């Protein structure tokens, strides 16, 4: 007997006495009572559970509401899924974020290792510089990026000579995403390297392995769960980047830029299907990545 049957019983005027003497209902009550008893004993855990639950609910309700509202107009969602402009924008976001995560990985992992292992002058300054993108408004980052990556900019000019243009081009989106997301990779990888006991590296070297071999066979595999997490965070942060991308590369339109355009031009009804599509695709990629990581652990 399920909950609505009990409600029916109550509404149909059947006595509470009868309900209380129903065996399964008694069992449910007992379980709830036990859980409440345990939670009562551990008020500390209850408080933490409740505060955590509120956060999860905040995210779930916000996105859930968007999905719920769209559920009344599935045809618009299907149309969006067939719309080449939307699909191209999503592809641009995903591919640019992947390229920026790859660049962050190639240059960020060695930096993270150095920051985790060595103490040197101005180390905290370097750590601060790496974290600046987290602190500054994204639009400010976009303006700064535009300054260096424009055709006459300090980076844009030499690259322009070899035919690589950043303003209103795919490399510009990558540059903006990289700038905004690299702290997530560097910080997470650094913490990962810190968890690897340096003495394991010493032992490896005493067994004939060079520094490089030791890094490849011992340090990197042991820090890889954190590095992987860092890559996922970096990628996700890249996909979601809007303001900085908008300033340096309005074209080709990445998904957040396109969604903003749709919102300002046509309102919620037009921008919501594209938003849902982007969230859904990213969610699937996220789940696949997380699942592959867990599979690897097993």
């Amino acid at each position, binding site marked *: 007997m399920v909950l609505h049957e009990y409600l029916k019983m109550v509404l149909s005027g059947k006595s509470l006495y009868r309900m209380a003497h129903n065996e399964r209902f008694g069992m449910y009550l007992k379980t709830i009572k036990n859980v409440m008893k345990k939670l009562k004993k551990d008020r500390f855990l209850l408080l933490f559970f409740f505060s955590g639950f509120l956060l999860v609910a905040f995210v779930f309700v916000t996105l859930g509401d968007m999905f719920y509202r769209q559920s009344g107009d599935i045809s618009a969602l299907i149309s969006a899924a067939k719309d080449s402009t939307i699909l191209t924008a999503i592809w641009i976001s995903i591919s640019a974020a992947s390229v920026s995560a790859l660049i962050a990985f190639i240059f960020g992992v060695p930096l993270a290792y150095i920051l985790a292992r060595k103490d040197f002058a101005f180390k905290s300054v370097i750590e601060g510089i790496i974290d600046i993108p987290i602190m500054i408004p994204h639009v400010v980052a976009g303006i700064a990026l535009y300054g260096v990556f424009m055709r006459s900019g300090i980076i844009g000019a030499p690259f322009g000579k070899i035919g690589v243009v950043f303003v209103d081009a795919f490399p510009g989106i990558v540059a903006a995403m990289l700038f905004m997301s690299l702290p997530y990779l560097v910080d997470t990888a650094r913490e990962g390297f810190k968890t690897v006991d340096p*003495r394991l590296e*010493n032992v*490896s070297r*005493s*067994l004939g392995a060079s520094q490089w071999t030791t890094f490849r066979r011992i340090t990197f595999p042991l820090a890889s769960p954190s590095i992987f997490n860092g890559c996922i965070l970096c990628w996700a942060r890249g996909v979601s980047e809007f303001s900085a991308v908008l300033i340096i590369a309005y074209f080709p339109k990445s998904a957040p830029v396109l969604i903003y355009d749709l919102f300002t031009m046509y309102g919620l009804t037009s921008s919501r299907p594209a938003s849902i599509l982007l969230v859904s695709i990213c969610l699937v990629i996220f789940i696949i990545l997380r699942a592959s990581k867990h599979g690897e652990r097993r």
Partner: protein
Amino acid sequence: MITIKNLQRKWKEFNLKDINLTIEKGEYFVILGPTAAGKTLLLELIAGFYIPDAGEIWIHGDNVTTMTPEDREVGFVYQDYGLFPHFTVEGNIEYGLKIKKIPKDKINKESQAMMDLLGITYLKDRYPTTLSGGEKQKTAIGRALMLNPHILLLDEPLSALDARTKAGLQDELKKIHNESDITIIHVTHDQTEAMIMADRIGIMMGGEIVQTGTTHEIFNTPKNRMIADFVGTENVLEGHISKKIDGLTIVDIGSSEIFAISDLEIGSKVHAFIRPEDIIISKELQETSARNNLETKIKKIIHLGAIVRMELDNELVAFTTKQSAEELELNIDEHIYASFKTTAVHIVGR
């Protein structure tokens, strides 16, 4: 032979000060010292994990001071084993040979032989997190020995083990040492372990090697009070040399006089060290070769398993076996004689 010349290294707030040490080929050398004496740092410098600030390290005639660890052919075992958690026991054992790109069938054969030798073959597919302390330590030792290093450096290898496992591994290490010409440097803070394992001992305190010698020399003739305290010479008496009679030195310790052997002159202020196990307790004055017979009372009796520790009224501490204590029917406040030979007294100027 390992020769360490004027070795110095600063490590945060700690300084390794001017270490000079010679360890013969094939020797089992124990570095004994309290916590934070710099023992591990010294071992890590020998292994090449750090470059010294000054001084030189020579191994078998080669100056290896700036040589990388991978080129030194030195095995290293840490106190907490340092096993690679993502490799099985077999993977850990085979690591060094794989790095050297030895053919696979040879690796398998050699790792099997090593696991058989250490009795850990049944663990070959297990990961380190599932092993006991003893199993982990055997794996770590096996891994270090796989490359037939000239030198094996052991950093407190037995301190995290229970007494029974420790005894087993001590035998194992002794066996490995006796059956090869490997030089072993073993760091520990445990004096009993040092006594059991060492051919020679180096006492390390505050970043310095303060005394080296055979087990007998270290434990019976400590160079100063600090070393005496550390190596368990519980009886440290202060006095001065009052007389010399028939080649014997008489030390006045205030409450009484004791006979000893010393080259120091009359009037010298001295410390007299007597190990508790060198004091014989008896109820009657015995006709023995012991020249020192001090009449005293038992203040406290502590049973330590097979050993009984007695604190005496004259501030001396004596050990006797449980059996002797029972036979003598010793009780607190009982009048007894504490006897010890002149050779059991080690005199050091203060």
